[in-house]
């Protein structure tokens, strides 16, 4: 082999080694980043989270039936969760730049909880200056209701649904009102005679399958009600936020 050829072969060998190292680094990084990070399993966090407490209790109950005392299983579960969370934070610290630039974030907590609790999104307009009594409101949109489909394509878009679900948290009250005003601006355009717009969520709970026929989705009192005066929005050319109540 000539000197030039040997140099070329050496360069190729160097690249092959570098490439193998980089691929290995990527594979290790994504495996580490994908480890679960069960945050919120500390004793303090559990005290304020009924859903997690209930999930934890169900596992402790199952382990107790298998002969593991609840105090022991509690220590195991919280200990493993704490260890994984600590590892995740360390990995995050080191690999954040790689995640940010290459889009390699690994968080696969999808449908980890499939709760029986949910809500129907409902929107109404009141026309003709009627006061806000039950008889004055006309339903224009309700989740899964084939008779009330105002801008259903928007509210039922997968990304929009995800955001509306996130906004149902009490911590997101301010943003929920922002969404209500944005929906009201659209209603002001689509229902020129309407004076007010109302949006709320009707909590529902799935009964056991054998009771579904008689109970349906057990609807409860609406929450997150926001009423917006549409005239104010029209006066501001549709661009200003309306008054919520």
């Amino acid at each position, binding site marked *: 082999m000539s000197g030039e050829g040997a140099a070329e072969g050496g360069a190729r060998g*160097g690249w*092959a*080694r570098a490439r*193998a190292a980089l691929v*290995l680094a990527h*594979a290790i990084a*994504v495996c580490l980043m*994908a*480890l*679960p990070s*069960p945050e919120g399993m500390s004793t303090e966090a559990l005290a304020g989270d009924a859903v997690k407490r209930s*999930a934890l209790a*169900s*596992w402790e*109950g*199952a382990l107790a039936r298998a002969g593991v005392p609840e105090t022991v299983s509690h220590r195991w579960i919280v200990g493993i969760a704490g260890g994984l969370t600590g590892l995740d934070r360390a990995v995050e610290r080191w690999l954040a730049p790689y995640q*940010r630039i*290459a*889009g390699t*974030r*690994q*968080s*696969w*907590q*999808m449908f*980890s*909880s*499939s*709760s*029986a*609790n*949910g*809500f*129907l*999104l409902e929107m109404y307009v009141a026309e003709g200056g009627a006061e806000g009594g039950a008889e004055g409101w006309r339903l224009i949109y309700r989740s*899964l209701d*084939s008779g009330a489909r105002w801008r259903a*394509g928007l509210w*039922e*878009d*997968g*990304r*929009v*649904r*995800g*955001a509306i*679900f996130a906004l149902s948290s009490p911590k997101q009250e301010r*943003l929920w009102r922002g*969404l209500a*005003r*944005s929906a009201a601006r659209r209603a002001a355009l689509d229902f020129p005679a309407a004076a007010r717009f109302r949006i709320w969520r009707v909590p*529902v709970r*799935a009964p*056991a*399958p*054998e009771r*579904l026929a008689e109970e*349906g*989705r057990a609807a409860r009192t609406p929450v997150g009600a926001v009423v917006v005066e549409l005239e104010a929005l029209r006066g501001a050319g549709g*661009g200003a936020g309306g008054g919520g109540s």
Partner: protein
Amino acid sequence: MSGGIVSGRGSGGIVSGRLWRIWEGAISEREPGTALALVRIGVGLAVAGDLAVFAGSGGMALMWGDTRDTAEGFRTFTEGGLLGWLGGAGWGTVQGLSLVTGLAALLMAAGLWPGAMAFVALQGCIALYGINPMAGGGHDRVATNALWLLCWAQSGQTLSAGCRWRTRHAPGGGRWRDDTPIPAWPRWLMILQLCLIYTMTGVQKLSPEWTPWGGLRAVYNMLLVPIWARWDLAPWLGQAGPLLMAATAISLLWEVSFGAVGLWLVRRWWRERHGAAPGVQGGLRDLRTGYAAVGALFHLTLWGLTSLGPFSPLMLALYPALFRPQDWPQADQGMKAPRTMS
């Protein structure tokens, strides 16, 4: 790493560990690029289609529009990353970036400068998905991880406009197909990614609804509670209780154990090159086809019955990575795997 079409070359370098030599040889392997081309086409169409659907529904203006710029938004956003560099998350900038990202994804799908277009689409997606994480989810990470691998995959070698252009002077005119081998390691990293997604999402399904002592009601709840359900199935779900319990158990077991597909593929690869490991007897039952069939059914059902954004099309777009061209029933006999495969 697969196929035995073009064998890897030994390192002969300064690193002398046997495992390292095997790894380096594996990373040097090449194979026809059909699988990665199909992934490229699927991911490109899924990313561009998602942006088009999101814009068309009005969701983009609602979720990514800043109220300081557009009356259709609902909140303000802080600016950083690429959008900060472009002058902020103004609605005009967001629309422009969405257009560029969607076009890059389409050009990538068509196979025109696929590596560069994957990088443009990736950076656009990272910036756009980061505007309002409330409107995102696991599907966004599926897209960006796949785009990152497609940046390096040489996936335009075949089934691409680039291939057609490159072979335009060949006898008979331009061809859509070119079986010139490309590096196999990006396909293996996609398989690793698939295994991580499914296994990790499975092991984190710890809420009681996924367990026998919680009644295995997760799928029933998902279809009945109107957060994700696309249709009102309440009139039928009551009678389908046992079926939905089975679906819950099967989908959880399938997800948790999906890593077995990756292990099976590695084992097959090892057998093709090194023979059976000492003490290992018996043939290799193809786990992959069964898992892929269940996965396809699972994703098509989710797609039809729930509204989860681009999750199902993106995941299905990665499935071709599980199959080498020579694994397909109609594969050219000349591309069949070595005889060591059982």
